[in-house]
């Protein structure tokens, strides 16, 4: 069995680049989106991160601004 690489990757950034992105814009302009489960969020999350569990994401896209940078983890 093979996993074909038929996926188009979205851009990935590392933490340094994420910090730069936040510094270059205003902190409120970058959405840090935590797509893990609430329990994991409670255990630890990035300051200011918005929690939308992956399973809810499709139904809650309206909560996100389309033109704002979004960093997902």
């Amino acid at each position, binding site marked *: *069995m*093979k*996993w*074909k*690489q*038929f*996926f*188009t*990757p*979205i*851009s*990935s*950034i*590392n*933490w*340094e*680049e*994420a910090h730069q*992105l936040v510094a270059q814009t205003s902190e409120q302009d970058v959405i840090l989106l*935590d797509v*893990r*489960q*609430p*329990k*994991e969020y409670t255990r*630890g*999350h*990035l300051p200011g991160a918005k929690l939308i*569990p*992956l*399973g809810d*994401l*499709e139904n809650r*896209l309206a909560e*996100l601004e*389309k*033109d*704002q*940078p*979004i*960093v*997902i*983890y």
Partner: protein
Amino acid sequence: MGKGFSKVFNLTGGIKAWKKEVAVGSEDTGLYLFRSEGSPEEAVITGFGLEMGLRDFYLSMQSRVSRESTKALFGKLAGIEILHQERLVELYTEITGTAHTMTEFAEKIVEPAMEGGLSTEDFLGLYKVDLNSELEVLGLALAIEAQALDLYLRAAERSDNGNTSKVLLQIAEEERTHIARLSNYIDDQQDLT
């Protein structure tokens, strides 16, 4: 994510990298989206490949995790992926007019399309999953199921055949329930690490 969002970035290494305050590399190890073009027929082939991968992943993880309830959950999900494969073969027959058994379809149509792809081990290596962490394994299962959901929803949207669209939406709905089941399981197991 698509859907009009233009500045979406996946954080390499996730929150684990943040805890260390260092970058873990530049590989694209995170969320991926299916390509948006392609016919329903291609989506059926892709979907079948993904279902094979999902089943392989669940069975492989089932033998590695220690918690009995996680083993049972993975076994159940692996079983459902076979039903999806059967439905996809039926759908392929309906779309193309060419009948195949499930084995033939896998060997003659899907596997050639998967050439050059990654083995499950390579795939797990790419995602840098800590296989000792059931939480991480479950998290990856969620991510793969989300990709499957995305594939079926997009394919259903593109299809101009009512029945094809209906079947793809049904499978999408079942993938949605898998996501809910995995999510609820993670939340219910208080001591998962």
